[in-house]
């Protein structure tokens, strides 16, 4: 199998949705024809492209990527951020995009967090009609993203990046 080295990386792996450990392992990140490969000393691990569900940016400074696959998550930081950004851009079209929330989701949640809960106001600010906003709120509620009193749940908070959470804290949302 041919592989091409992308960068030296610090990484960590967690099973399922378990909490990630600090990035305490060192390895080399490579790309192969069918997936990405991590070499850690004598051990070589492969993650195939079709098995990947998402490639998220966990933080910008330094750039940390989280790759989620069936059954595990891998987080990594490299020496050259642009190489990891490039890998993300290469992979996303292959896996049909990132798992980011539907457009407007975060804006609506931030407005709710700020205390704007009237559907007519939310609709006028977001440029949507009231039925669309109500449908989004109903979906959020049934998916467990907001409570019956339209407060954000922990599940909602998991959609935000660390810098977005800082912003929510200023609005008085407990993160």
């Amino acid at each position, binding site marked *: *199998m*041919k*592989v*091409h*080295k992308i960068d030296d990386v610090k990484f960590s*792996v967690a*099973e*399922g949705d378990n909490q990630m450990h600090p990035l305490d*392992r060192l390895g080399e990140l490579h*790309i*192969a*024809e*069918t997936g990405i*490969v991590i070499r*850690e000393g004598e*051990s*070589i*691990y*492969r*993650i*195939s*492209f079709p098995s990947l569900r998402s490639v998220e940016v966990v933080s*910008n400074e330094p750039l940390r990527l989280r790759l989620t*696959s*069936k*059954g*595990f998550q891998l987080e990594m930081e490299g020496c050259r951020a*642009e*190489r990891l*950004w*490039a*890998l*993300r*851009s*290469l*992979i*996303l*079209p*292959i896996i*049909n*995009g*990132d798992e980011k929330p539907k457009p*407007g989701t975060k*804006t609506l949640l*931030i*407005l709710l967090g*700020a*205390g*704007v*809960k*009237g559907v007519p*106001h939310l609709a*006028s*600010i*977001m*440029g949507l009609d009231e039925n669309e906003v109500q449908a989004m709120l109903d979906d959020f509620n049934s998916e467990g993203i907001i409570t019956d009193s339209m407060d954000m749940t922990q599940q909602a908070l998991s959609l935000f990046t660390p810098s*977005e959470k800082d*912003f929510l804290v*200023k*609005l008085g949302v407990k993160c």
Partner: protein
Amino acid sequence: MTPYGFKSFAEVVAGLGKLTQLETAISKAIEQSKVPSQETRKFIKSQTPDQLRNVALFQFMKELFKDIGLGEMDVSRVDNFKLYLSFASSQVCEIYPKQNKKMTCYITSDALSRFFSEDLGLPADVSEIECCNKGSPTCIFEIGLQPLAVYQMVLDSVDRSIISSMIDGKSFDESINEMSLDKSEAEYRHSTLKRYHVIEEERVTEIGKTYHKYGGSLFNEEEDNFPPPWVEYSRIAGEIASTASFAEAVSETTDDSTEEINEKEVTSMTEEAKKSHSFAELIAKKVKEGEN
């Protein structure tokens, strides 16, 4: 299976190399392009595509993104909290084989999101909604701006005094009389506050009250006083070009970082994860080995 219809491993590596060059240029451009808020204010106050095209910041973005290699930028629609930008002749689309009919330009979405957030101070949610690789004549990106950030940029201390006065129970006319504003300025402020849904039917709306409550505490309210980046655009363009050339040169010299590994020595993390216990054991074993 070769990903996304790339014909060979060499094409995958070439695609990654081109994306790395673009990312290098994007990072350099964003690092050099901080825009003072008075210029951003003119940009987001534009109400039509024609108005926006005449704003200096828009013209700067057009040049910047073209020089990075992301294509010819134009605007197709402007709303209060949304912008629709199109890109034609983008190098990004050429990286990916055409046959898959998928959206491909995540790199452009990320670049726009980073530019709005880091250089304009406006958190933005960017999504590609049409793509040349999916058969559209141009790639179109929807940029959703965070309303509270837009308010912070668009409304000034006089607007805030009007809102405060109205929350205290005065009418709009009483509020502007207190501040001795002339008629044309009063009309302008009234239309701005109405346009952004801060006042409706002569009352401060829920979002207006929210903005008043948080005031300047959410974003940096200090007016920045530095020249806009287009004052020295030729230097920025030169740095972008030399950075991209350097990245290309590095990419060419790292061709020897391709090697062959024995497939039998490779562990599939996905297969191991399916056997949940053995995967846990595998990781535990590796950690233990590392400790020893």
